[in-house]
């Protein structure tokens, strides 16, 4: 038996013991996880710093703060989320109990990514724990130091049988995918997303895929360019552009291109000083492979700002590209790096057309002071999420579902959405063996009269209004009374 097989089998056994179900146990695990973030902040930050050159404050801001908030929310709301949810009844079930009961799925596989390793690996885990599941956590091997820290620390704080950490590369992931899970939650790119879904087909395992894409950013000339460019620069260059919802490229009219470049340059200087290489708040590319990949994207475009790079440190300066053409290399794939291409277009119509030619992105941004522009962009495009006049921040609202559509993914999470995504919502009808007389109308031998009653009663629910419902209730009572005194309705 391989190590992966063993750990999955152990997680399943632990799940079947039932201990992950009581709400108290789930909250206990989540509180311990929260303690991990505070007690081990230094180790977490050191590892992230080695992997992505992020500062300690940056790590808190972008990784652990959100997770703590999510856990706090769950602790407050879990009882409500896990409780039976009553639903509308029809006439025949008026005396019955009808509700949806959320239940755990079983053993969930969580495959994390390397760009915000704690956020995108642990947030699904939080959802899985809250929903009462066991979960196998597979951190990305690309963020080498963080994967090690996760492997070492998680078992010290949370139930290591229910939530084992499996580290490794492609062979280990493939071995994991051969096992049977009740849900697979993957964050990463579309190519691997397809492989995951195909593997899930074998056991008919449902999947949540948080993928990526090229998130467009349209700047309308009526907006406050200085604020817009500052927000865009922040959204772009945070984590050195390695964010699934970073504004990938800008679409704007040629008349404002120069101003946009100026304002972005100003913001870069304000955030990262005149020499970002020495600034502790500016990140690095995760590894050589991605460094080389991103540099190739520069090849056939004009650099308007930045462009400096240093292979030894995987450093690429915050860069802006001007007059970029749709056929340029930088427009052929998700950049996932600190290059901000500007494509001049004639206006909103062309922008919408251009965006719709591509795959549906994970996020879509529009900067405008004109509500009509914002509404048109929203109504005539599709994307995972939509944000006007800022970047990234919709990620932080836990009452908004976070997920993609089309090539950018399927399923969603955050807050209650995580809980529901990793639960089974079981429809329950609790009846009694009484009032059997009423059921007579549905039993054979079938007669036209019975059919008339059944048609009327069993299914009619909608558009009756309050009065209609009361009238039918009265008739139902009459039928019940009548049928209990007769063995059968008249033929």
């Amino acid at each position, binding site marked *: 038996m391989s190590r992966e097989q063993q750990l999955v089998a152990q997680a399943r056994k632990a799940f079947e013991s039932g201990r992950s179900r009581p709400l108290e146990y789930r909250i206990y695990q989540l509180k311990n996880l929260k303690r991990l973030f505070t007690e081990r902040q230094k180790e977490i930050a050191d590892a992230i710093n080695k992997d992505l050159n992020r500062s300690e*404050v940056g790590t808190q*801001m*972008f990784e652990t*703060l*959100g997770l703590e*908030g999510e856990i706090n*929310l769950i602790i407050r709301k879990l009882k409500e989320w896990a409780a039976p949810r009553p*639903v509308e*009844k029809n006439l025949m079930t008026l005396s019955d109990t*009808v509700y949806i009961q959320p*239940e755990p*799925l*079983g053993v969930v596989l969580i495959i994390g990514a390397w760009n915000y390793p704690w*956020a995108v690996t642990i947030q699904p885990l939080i959802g899985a724990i809250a929903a009462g599941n066991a979960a196998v956590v597979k951190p990305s091997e690309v963020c080498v130091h963080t994967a090690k820290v996760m492997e070492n620390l998680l078992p010290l704080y949370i139930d290591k049988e229910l939530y084992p950490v499996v580290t490794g590369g492609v062979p280990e992931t493939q071995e994991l995918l051969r096992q049977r899970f009740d849900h697979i939650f993957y964050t990463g790119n579309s190519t691997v997303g*397809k492989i995951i*879904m*195909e593997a*899930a*087909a074998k056991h*008919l395992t449902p999947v949540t895929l948080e993928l990526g894409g090229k998130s467009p950013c349209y700047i309308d000339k009526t*907006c406050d360019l200085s*604020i817009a460019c500052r927000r865009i620069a922040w959204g772009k260059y945070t984590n050195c552009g390695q964010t699934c919802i970073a504004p990938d490229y800008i679409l704007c009219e040629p008349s404002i291109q120069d101003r946009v470049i100026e304002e972005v340059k100003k913001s870069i200087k*304000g*955030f990262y000083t005149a020499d970002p290489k020495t600034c502790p708040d500016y990140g690095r590319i995760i590894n050589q492979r991605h460094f080389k990949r991103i540099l190739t994207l520069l090849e056939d475009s004009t650099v308007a700002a930045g462009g400096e790079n240093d292979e030894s440190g995987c450093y690429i300066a915050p860069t802006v590209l001007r007059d970029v053409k749709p056929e340029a290399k930088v427009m052929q794939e998700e950049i996932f790096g600190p290059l901000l291409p500007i494509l001049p277009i004639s206006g909103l119509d062309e922008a919408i057309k251009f965006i*719709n030619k591509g795959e549906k992105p994970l996020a879509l941004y529009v900067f405008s002071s004109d509500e009509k522009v914002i509404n048109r962009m*929203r109504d005539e495009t*599709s994307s995972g*999420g*939509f944000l*006007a*006049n*800022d970047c990234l*921040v919709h990620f*932080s*609202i*836990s009452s908004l*579902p976070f*997920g993609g*559509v*089309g090539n950018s993914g*399927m399923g969603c999470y955050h*807050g209650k959405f995580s809980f529901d995504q990793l639960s089974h919502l*079981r*429809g329950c*009808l*609790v*009846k*009694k*063996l009484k009032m*059997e007389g009423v*059921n007579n109308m*549905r*039993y*054979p031998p*079938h007669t036209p009269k019975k059919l008339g009653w059944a*048609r009327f009663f*069993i*299914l009619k*629910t909608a*558009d009756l209004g309050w009065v209609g419902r009361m009238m039918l209730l009265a008739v139902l009572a009459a039928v019940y009374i009548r049928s209990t005194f007769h063995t059968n309705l008249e033929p």
Partner: protein
Amino acid sequence: MVCVEQPSAGERMNTHSEVVDRLRGAFQSGVTIPEEFRRTQLTMLRSMISDNEERILKALHQDLAKPKFEAILSEVEIVMNELHHAIANLSHWMKPDYVSKNLATKLDDCFVRREPLGVVLVIGPWNYPLQLLILPMVGAIAAGNCVIIKPSEVSFATECLIADLIPKYLPQDCYTVVRGGSEETKALLQNRFDHIFYTGSQTVARSIVQAASVHLTPVTLELGGKCPCLLYGRLNIVAAAHRLVWSKFFNAGQSCVAPDYVLCSTATRDALIPALKDVLESFYTTEPQKCPDVSRIVSLRHWTRLVELLGKTRGRIVLGGEHDQEDKYIAPTVVVDVAEDDALMAEEIFGPILPIITIESVEKSIAFVNRKEKPLALYVFSDESSVVKMVMENTSSGGFCSNDGIVHMTLPGLPFGGVGGSGWGNYHGRWGFETFSHRRACMLRGWALERLNGLRYPPYSEEKLKWLRWTTSAKNSCSMM
């Protein structure tokens, strides 16, 4: 009614791509988006059903010898009800949900919009050939999509009828029927859809997921499984027998949510069998083959499969067992002394054969059920609410119903779908609308409070972080702003 001959394989491939392209063009034109358009289509579908009830009943009778009563209840009325429900609630469903925010975003607009996915594919099965094709279609249309529907070729008369009627009531550019068998379906699946909704078997479902993975198309799978029916504790045997017989032998057992097998103690079994006998006689007379309220098996292939099961079982047939090949008839049959590894327990029966397995305690029955795949539905009959509670809390299934069978499906407020081997996703009522929609998170920020934003910009500092924590935590969770 004569059905036209099918085109060749090559023609089919081209035709399919053309159809998908045409529908995609229609979707991109935006015609299916406005609420009025969707309401009109749903209203037309409603007219289609009510104008053609006789033809529908005739086709269903040809395919499955469906008694008029069953056809009306489980095909016509349930579809009409779903249409009424969608038409009445469409406005409400389409409204955006405004959501709660944190302090930093108090001045912003945050809401969730339901948006159509694009071109969706609905593949229907043969057992309720109208209901299980049109009900998903209602959700898809209500959500603003263009729809390709693929009725089952096994229920041939209904397939022909649907292919004839849909173009007469709905615009072909937005809603098209594609006909054919497994080869045609395979070819159709090579195209790119924005959602695939499949009702049928696990085997086919696997190949659908594989085909969908090529395009990262989300799927909904309504599969089956062996739906257990537990009878324990104190119970009104006569009432239980009525409801059990009704739900088992409805449509000759060919329902994905039919109670597949019974688990009960020996004492209960001994009381149950005479009760079942009485009910069977009162429902279907002493000569069920002549009774117009008894359905037939859909095809010779399935009839043979079922008769072979009867031959292979090591159990004892106590009621029924008669069969007639020419008529594709199998009598309502009850088999006892069935072991866990019996032929009748190897696959979903999907026929009028009811095995009874005797297990003395409800705890052991629960363990038995949990050894198997999670079913689409799970039933327990008991007058003791503690027994009902124990079964519900210690098992998992798509849906759960105590003291009756099938009827939980008729409630549009309940999500109808499986879990594990019985399926993925759900529908009915609003759930159908949600299944075929994308929930797009939308946030509209203003230009004000840029100074507040300053907290998140580099250079980062502990001080800024403290403020950030405070402004973003408030009532909800947060991350960076």
